[in-house]
């Protein structure tokens, strides 16, 4: 067997991307296409009173003005994909007069050119009756999520073991703090974009999506047509971070407009519109209380978390889940609440739930270490659990201690002097901080198809996505590995809804799920080939051999233990049977495995900050993550993925926040000049290291997932480093200059 897995191959599609040949959704221009621009509500709550479209309809190039007054009544049949909130009903667009949040689409203007459509959209007069929206999470009512209220609920809002509150009272050392994390928007480079073209009652969408299979199903449900009538294509994604998991209203609007004007329509959101109705990391409020013995052993953890949601859907994320198994502790209580606001529905953003929840937990643990006068890593070591104490089952693997060792050594943690403000570089205050990271090893059923062509090359297909991790490359490596042929002979295609269905490209489950399906498809192909070889045989002399007597080596089929009588894939094709030869694979996780084991990736992340003692500018000078994520398919891509995630964590720590004007719910910094993300100058030296970790339980590939955990923990490491540098505990994210003055 060759060893394609584990090789640091460069991106197969890298050249296409850097030379502009990779085609993104908005670039699939169609013959006769018109341009649509969304008109968003300028009130945050209320009703549309009137839309005066007559003047706009006469403007140059305008093809149509579509609003609730003339829009098609849409079926909005029930459909709840795995990335949709578990309760509530998705936003229905252009179906009525109610306004639920600022920027909600109230009309679409379709014109011959984009300029004409934009100009006309600006000119459209919409009058509203407005009410005062409530967008302040601090003032909002906290509710138990509906899915936890139902009898036999699948989610629990309150989880406890022992008596955390009583234990806290008796604890020798205590820490209590409240944490506030700002709303964040994903802000990928590529804007949301959809081109819609109808042919009779069949619809083709070229649409930015991390989940083409669900986009197909969702649009079919909304329009009340069979799913097979909808084709969704998305070969490339220019970053997404979760914002393209769900099918948001603009996709519906593009399809609705295309049907209304009876020609293909292109709709691309502006940067500003990407702050309205395409999801965001929810604003969260958390309270943590820790109690420990004088030796550092935790005896109580209480973690209460609440996140914003909309009034019409209950978005939930795993804000407090990690707290039940991160540390060994007999008394643990967690609770999770939602705060409905007059806002659009939040969604998953890289490291969803864990990024926010672990931030609070890991900042509190750092605070506890100071109270105990212990090294923060030593405190964590003392509380390292042997099993998942929340569920009382073993971990499939957990390399936390190895991550501390490797991370601390590479980072130079031993150089740290614990006293806040004690480390300097010239006049700058230096701080070192660290935190744990974790993310579950998610998995969902996936399918893949493998096709052996007469020339000996192999086509692999799955409805997966590549938003940046390098799916094209890593999946080719998986196929090459299990077929035993060079990667150059694999051609992997993704991003089409008519390919074998896969789960969402999120939750760090693509390699685990789709990779496992590709492996299964490759094994299926080999089994079929073996049957064929045994039947045919010809001059290679495999005729009459049972499939069990054959094995694959170096891309050829041999009689077991022999090297003289082999046939290649190309030979096999000439033996007849179906051509091309097709292997199909499905990956599913045995339900028992999930019950018997707790499956998570773990890591330890480190940051060094330098703070100007006068003007308080914060620079992250170094960042490092040591991760235990099972098998690493492509270390180069994995390292890239971690670097990107850690930069996202730095942004979360010291820059990113979406600010709402409380008077009307308007995001006031919906612009790349005003919503800060790190630029190159803010991006420090970053290292990612992987500990050797073999996990034979999670899935046949032994991969635990990487994309999400790469962001998790960094905000806490940076916060802890800022405290180390300055002695200040800032319990709000982002931590900015104004917080340190």
């Amino acid at each position, binding site marked *: 067997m060759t060893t394609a897995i584990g090789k640091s191959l460069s991106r197969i599609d890298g050249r296409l991307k850097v030379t502009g040949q990779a085609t993104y959704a908005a670039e699939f221009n169609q013959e006769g296409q018109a341009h649509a621009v969304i008109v968003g509500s*300028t009130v945050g709550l209320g009703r549309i009173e009137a839309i005066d479209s007559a003047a706009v309809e006469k403007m140059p190039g305008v093809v149509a003005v579509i609003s609730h007054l003339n829009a098609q009544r849409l079926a909005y049949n029930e459909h709840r994909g795995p990335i949709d909130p578990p309760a509530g009903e998705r936003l229905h667009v252009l179906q009525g007069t109610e306004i639920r949040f600022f920027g909600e689409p109230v009309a679409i203007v379709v014109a011959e050119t984009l*300029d004409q459509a*934009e*100009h006309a959209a*600006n000119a459209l007069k919409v009058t509203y009756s407005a009410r005062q929206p409530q967008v302040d999470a601090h003032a909002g009512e906290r509710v138990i999520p509906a899915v936890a209220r139902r009898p036999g609920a699948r989610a629990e809002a309150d989880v406890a073991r022992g008596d955390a509150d009583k234990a806290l009272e008796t604890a020798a050392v205590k820490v209590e703090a409240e944490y506030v994390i700002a709303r964040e928007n994903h802000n990928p480079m590529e804007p949301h974009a959809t081109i819609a073209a109808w042919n009779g009652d069949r619809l083709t969408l070229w649409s930015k999506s991390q989940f083409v299979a669900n986009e197909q199903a969702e649009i079919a449900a909304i329009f009340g047509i069979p799913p097979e009538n909808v084709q969704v294509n998305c070969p490339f994604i220019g970053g997404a971070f979760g914002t393209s998991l769900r099918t948001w209203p603009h996709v519906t609007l593009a399809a609705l407009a295309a049907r209304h004007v009876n020609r293909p329509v292109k709709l691309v959101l502006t940067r500003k519109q990407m702050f309205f109705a395409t999801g965001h990391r929810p604003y969260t409020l958390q309270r943590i209380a820790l109690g420990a013995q004088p030796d550092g052993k935790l005896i109580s953890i209480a973690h209460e978390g609440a996140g914003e949601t909309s009034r019409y859907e209950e978005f939930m994320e795993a804000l407090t889940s990690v707290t039940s198994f991160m540390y060994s502790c007999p008394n643990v209580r967690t609770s999770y609440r939602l705060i409905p606001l007059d806002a659009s529905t939040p969604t998953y953003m890289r490291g969803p739930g864990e990024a926010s929840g672990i931030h609070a937990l890991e900042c509190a643990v750092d605070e506890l270490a100071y109270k105990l006068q212990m090294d923060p890593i030593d405190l964590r070591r003392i509380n390292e659990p042997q099993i998942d104490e929340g569920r009382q089952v073993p971990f499939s693997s957990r390399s936390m201690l190895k991550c501390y060792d490797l991370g601390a050594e590479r980072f130079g943690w031993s150089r740290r002097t614990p006293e806040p403000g004690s480390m300097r570089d010239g006049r700058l205050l230096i701080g070192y901080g660290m935190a744990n990271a974790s993310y579950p090893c998610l998995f969902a059923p996936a399918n893949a198809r493998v096709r052996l062509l007469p020339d000996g090359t192999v086509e692999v297909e799955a409805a997966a996505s590549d938003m940046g991790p390098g799916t094209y490359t890593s999946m080719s490596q998986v196929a090459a590995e299990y077929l035993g042929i060079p990667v150059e002979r694999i051609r992997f295609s993704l991003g089409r809804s008519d390919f074998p269905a896969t789960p969402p490209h999120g939750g760090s489950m693509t390699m685990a799920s789709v990779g496992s399906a590709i492996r299964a498809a490759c094994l299926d192909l080999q089994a079929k080939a073996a049957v064929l070889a045994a039947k045919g045989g010809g001059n290679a002399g495999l005729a009459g051999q049972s499939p069990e007597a054959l094995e694959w080596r170096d891309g050829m089929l041999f009689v077991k233990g022999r090297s003289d009588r082999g046939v290649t894939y190309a030979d096999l094709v000439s033996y007849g049977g179906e051509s091309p030869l097709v292997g199909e694979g499905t990956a599913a996780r045995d339900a028992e495995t999930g019950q018997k084991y707790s499956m998570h990736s773990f890591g330890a992340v480190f940051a060094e900050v330098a703070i*100007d003692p*006068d*003007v*308080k*500018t*914060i*620079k992250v000078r170094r960042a490092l993550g040591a991760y235990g994520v099972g098998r690493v398919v492509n270390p180069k891509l994995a390292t890239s993925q971690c670097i990107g995630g850690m930069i996202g964590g730095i942004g979360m720590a*010291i*820059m990113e926040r979406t*600010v709402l*004007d409380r*008077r009307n719910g*308007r995001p*006031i*910094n919906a*612009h790349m*000049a*005003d919503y*800060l993300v*790190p*630029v*190159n*100058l*803010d991006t420090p030296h970053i290292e990612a290291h992987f500990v050797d970790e073999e996990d034979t339980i999670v899935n046949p590939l032994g991969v635990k997932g990487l994309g999400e955990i790469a962001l998790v923990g960094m905000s806490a490491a940076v916060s802890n480093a800022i405290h180390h540098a300055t002695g200040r505990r800032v319990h709000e994210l*982002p931590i*900015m*200059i*104004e917080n340190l*003055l």
Partner: protein
Amino acid sequence: MRPFEFQRAASESEAIAAAAAGARYLAGGTTLVDLMREEVETPEKIVDINRLPLNYIRATDEAIVIGALARMSEVAANQDVRRLQPLIPETLTEGASPQLRNVASIGGNLLQRVRCPYFRMLDAACNKRVPGSGCSAIDGLNAGHAILGSSEHCVATHPSDLAVSLVALGATLSLKGPRGERTIPVEELFRLPESTPHLEHTLEPGELIVEVHVPNGPYARKARYLKVRDRSSYEFALVSAAAALHVENGIIKEVRIAAGGVGTRPWRMNAVEQALVGKPAARASYEIAAAVSTEETRPLSHNGFKVKLLPATIVRALEMAGDVA
């Protein structure tokens, strides 16, 4: 974007005639085109002045003279400017991004419009965009807004970094207009908002900035610009300070200080300067003097931190200037 007439001027007189008739000057376009795309600016006529012979940099013993069409990146890279007026390249490279600096002109930089978010939102009240409509920032989100020079009609800060340093250095502008030529200090280009925030500068209709004169004062070499912000590039200043020192035998003979990010126009810190002359060039003097900078500040609901940050920035900028050999 609204349709507009476009004209390319071949001479200064042609350009000035067009502008006097209502056309807007187009140089780098980094502010104007951006705002036109959002229909915040809706000029009916544009006169492109990029072919006028105003892209030059001249150095004499007395001054650096910069043509109004010189690009930010060209001025920042010019060896004479770097040698004689190091404050200017340092200031320019702290502004915008490399791509913007490659096209943005020096004249246009001084006339760039404010970054107040409400100014850029067509449906929000803004006296600068629609006189008399009200100011959304005063009772809204105003962390980035002014603590000096604001009025009940407008609290937006002037966004230019370069203007701050030019004000500190006592630079002047050569102007040409329908009624002839004149020279004004850069500081006098900018108006306070008062009750007419839509009027931002003192140029007469059709008047064109032709060049900038920066005198080579004795303080020009010992000068630094400190821009304080939450990320390292492509962000406007929370607070910035240009500081230029002339020190003899450890005593400050002359000092120029201006601040950005705090005022509705670039803010010369005269009182701080007066408090420094004759004092030792040392942190203790800087701290005492910088405390004066906040005397007339009027913070809003979200920008109180600037009152703390302003003196800290001035102290640090003075220290940096004092450290220049």
